[in-house]
């Protein structure tokens, strides 16, 4: 339920297509991608890794949407702060 970390798939092992080497911030490990057979994992994909297994393929579009929302909130906040700063009542 917990420690899952995103990693990038570097290669699928030729003799064992259920295993892939992933890169997590420069650190590499072979993990089992057998739980994602339906997704068709290929090098360049990002996956969520938990105890040596890939549990989910990270949806980059959703990640971007999440970031966009956060950026939007951040921008609105800054705009409001700026407005507060710049507004003068008297």
């Amino acid at each position, binding site marked *: *339920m*917990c*420690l899952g*970390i995103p*990693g990038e798939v570097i290669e699928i092992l030729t003799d064992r297509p259920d295993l892939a080497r992933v890169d*997590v*911030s*420069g*650190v*590499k*490990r*072979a993990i089992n991608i057998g739980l994602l057979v339906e997704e068709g994992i290929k090098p360049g994909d990002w996956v969520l*890794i*938990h*105890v*040596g297994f890939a549990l989910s393929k990270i949806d980059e579009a959703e990640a971007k949407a999440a970031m966009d929302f956060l950026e939007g909130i951040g921008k609105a906040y800054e705009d409001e702060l700026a407005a507060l700063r710049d507004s003068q009542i008297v």
Partner: protein
Amino acid sequence: MSTRQEVAAPSEKEQQVLDRIERARRRRAKVKEERITLAHGSGGNATQTLIDAIFLESFRNPLLEPLEDAAELTIAGARLALTTDSFVVSPLFFPGGNIGDLAVNGTVNDLAVSGARPLYLTAGFILEEGFPVADLTTIVDSMRAAADAAGVSIVTGDTKVVQRGKADGCYINTAGVGLREHPGRLGVATVRPGDAVLVSGPIGEHGVTVMLARGELDIEADLVSDTAPVHELVAGLLGTVPGVRAMRDATRGGVATILNEVARAAEVAVVVDESAVPVGTEVRGASELLGIDPLYVACEGRIVAFVDGSCADDALAAMRRHPLGERAAIIGRVKEDPPGLVLLNTVFGGTRICDLLVGDPLPRIC
């Protein structure tokens, strides 16, 4: 906007419990276990308790009490530093070194941070029956090379052999003697509010390298141990910066353990900025993967220095002048309150306590 940042004190009940905890922390140490466990060797709370309750209790004398990295002796007018260390690393050979250079560098560093010029080392070997002589030769050759690089001589030693199954191949014990040339007084008791905290380079490299080298975790990384003699870096610091209060060799238990030891010994607060602590990308990646915190992971060639606040920039410059200190950083400040605690200003902007762990950081699943 009213956030917890502006809220009043906790409820009376909560405060009572917090006070009780503080009193318990200050109480006399006692070892509750009947048998030694691995936690007693990890450098964290269990180790501290063992040292206080068993060793200090029995051996107590004014020279031992400061419990610094080396003891300060004065013999017939000569100011000496004396230290001892044992090396039980597994595996014996790892990227960046082996148990041999670890032994030499570790001992040299304990002397250096005590303000002493390292001079002479002893080397005692406990060898396992069946251990390959070729491996022993490699280790010993590394020790000679490390000793040459550090300008020390190994002047006496001992050898024992134990039955197959004991000693994990090879254990090494060392003692080191140096001349205390730094005129001032160094020691954690001198640390005071306003002091700056520096670290000489990226943390956690040795510990993560060794953990990965054990091969059980199947993780590959381009990491090497940071084992190195820091006596020149230290000399450069002491030679140019007058306000150095104390230095420590960040080994087992990592930087966080040292900060906690100092906070408790000097009864001050140490406040660290997480974003200022240098951590290499791979150490970070491996730590995230395993769920451990690099602040608690061993280094073998890094020092933590406490200097007078006004000298912080000079100290940083002095460290950076030496190749081993290229990525030195000022990571925090000493404050008066809350005494005995280490606080971390997180990357995220919150603040939390950075306490001593009970034992080794355990890789988490969750």
